[in-house]
């Protein structure tokens, strides 16, 4: 058995930031385990720019953003293993992993940071009617083919779902000479960032059909066309609104799901709202000493927020190793209410907070000139005015500790109050 103080599972942006921060906080014996052939995770295939505006105050591409953290990790002498797959984790923080180079390894950690990220929802998960020809890809898979391997996956493309990866891929395929005929989005609004609608669709006159979905994929060996229909408020296709587009490729950008097979196997409790582990103010999961950060906890829109959250997880993993985290004292749970779909963290132990508490949340619908209202049990303790709230844009609140430290309450509720 090999012993480490902190083992980080996943070498993407979350794992890199967590490992670096654990080292900065005085832990020397750290291991990062990555299953791919290089560090950096999904950033390496996200060759577009727009990363780092919060963390570095400049606009970087994905590989550039990854480079800064990889360089820092290497300069600090933090150990990492590539091409290594973690097979299991248990409550005693024993990890089984395997690689071609090292064979089968059993590793014991004092603290573990889960940073496995997320994966794309597939065609199977959304049940598109029709045949099963080739030419149907998830947007991220197509992105890897084009940006890493150098294959253009098709010439005439229809994209289902207007998440950011779908929008980015619409532009990328267009630049490489493909014709993107349409982006169909089942919701009445896009799940992607406004800037991406402007610079990926509007710039290239690619139509975005809101409240539309693909109702049939046609083709025997390869996709030959898709049928698109408008949907009503309950997302049911409206008969008579169908139109057919000839194409050879369908890209799916229909959401991301935190990748928690390992967490579930270890018996970590999962929040059905986020589909990630329940976490505390220190990013600790339901198992003592197992922390989690980044997209494995909840899907972020910005890598900058992943970095901030992961630094917190890394710092607290270091504190845990030094026995500086307390389960004593006051605590409360957070509860999403009216209009709020989830809140991270789900539980807060007040004594572990230095000065401020970071809260991430998402709303259920689009609101203009609304308020986010925070209640300690029934008492309103804070209101934030929000010009614009949308499900595709995660909200980040920084609460000063003095706001709640002197109060005795069980539940912090956050809800949306619409303008009168």
């Amino acid at each position, binding site marked *: 058995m090999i012993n480490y103080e902190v083992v980080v599972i996943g070498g993407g942006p979350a794992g890199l930031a967590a490992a670096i921060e654990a080292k900065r906080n005085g832990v020397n014996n750290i291991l990062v385990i990555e299953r791919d052939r290089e560090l950096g995770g999904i950033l390496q295939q996200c060759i577009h720019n*727009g990363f780092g505006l919060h963390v570095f105050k400049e606009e970087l*591409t994905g*590989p550039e953003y990854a*480079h800064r953290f990889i360089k820092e990790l290497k300069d600090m002498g933090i150990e990492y293993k590539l091409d290594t797959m973690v097979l299991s984790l248990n409550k005693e923080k024993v990890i089984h992993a395997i690689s071609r180079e090292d064979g089968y390894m059993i590793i014991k950690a004092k603290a573990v940071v889960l940073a496995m990220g997320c994966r794309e929802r597939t065609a199977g998960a959304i049940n598109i009617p029709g045949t099963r020809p080739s030419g149907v890809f998830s947007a991220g898979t197509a992105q890897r083919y084009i*940006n890493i*391997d*150098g294959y253009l996956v098709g010439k005439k493309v229809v994209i289902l779902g207007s998440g950011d990866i779908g929008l980015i891929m619409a532009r990328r395929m267009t*630049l490489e000479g493909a014709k993107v005929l349409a982006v169909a989005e089942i919701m009445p609004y896009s799940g992607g960032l406004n*800037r991406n609608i402007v610079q990926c669709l509007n710039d290239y006159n690619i139509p975005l059909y809101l409240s539309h979905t693909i109702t049939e994929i046609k083709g025997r060996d390869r996709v030959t066309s898709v049928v698109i229909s408008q949907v009503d408020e309950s997302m049911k296709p409206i008969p008579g609104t169908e139109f057919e587009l000839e194409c050879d490729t369908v890209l799916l950008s229909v959401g991301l799901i935190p990748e928690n097979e390992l967490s579930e196997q270890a018996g970590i409790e999962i929040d059905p709202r986020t589909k990630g582990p329940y976490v505390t103010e220190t990013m600790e999961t339901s198992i003592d000493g197992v922390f989690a950060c980044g997209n494995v906890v909840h899907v972020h829109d910005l890598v900058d927020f992943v970095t901030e959250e992961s630094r917190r997880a890394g710092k607290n993993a270091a504190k845990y190793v030094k026995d500086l985290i307390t389960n004593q004292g006051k605590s409360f749970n957070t509860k999403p209410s009216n209009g709020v779909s989830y809140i991270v963290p789900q539980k807060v132990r007040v004594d572990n907070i230095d000065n401020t508490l970071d809260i991430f949340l998402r709303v259920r619908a689009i609101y203009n000139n609304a308020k986010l209202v925070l209640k300690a049990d029934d008492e309103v303790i804070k209101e934030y005015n929000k010009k614009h709230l949308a499900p595709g844009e995660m909200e980040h609140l920084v609460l000063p500790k003095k706001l709640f430290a002197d109060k005795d309450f069980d539940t912090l509720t956050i809800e949306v109050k619409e303008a009168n």
Partner: protein
Amino acid sequence: MEKHNLICINCPMGCRLEITITENGGWLIEGNQCKRGLSYAQKELTAPTRTLTTTVKVKNSLLRRLPVKSSDGIPKEKIFEAMALINQVTVEPPISIGDIIIENILDTGVNIISSRDL
């Protein structure tokens, strides 16, 4: 007086800008949350540019493509012309992040640079 509505693409905030150009040529802007909103609006309404990110072919390496970007904005109407030039390039390691792959592309004064080490 002239009014325009734009969405700022400087950062992921995506501010909704309301721009008024007055008769005497003054610019009034609302909805921006930082000072970059005004310079974006002025540029977008007069000479719009975009950062171009793409890849070039690689030989003699484990990697098959090198991600590259323009060091500054390229005029919007020259993007496809720039792509055609970039797609003719093949590179070999060693390459460092920031290395110039194409200098002064299409006489724009903008370089195409590497996004990573190779």
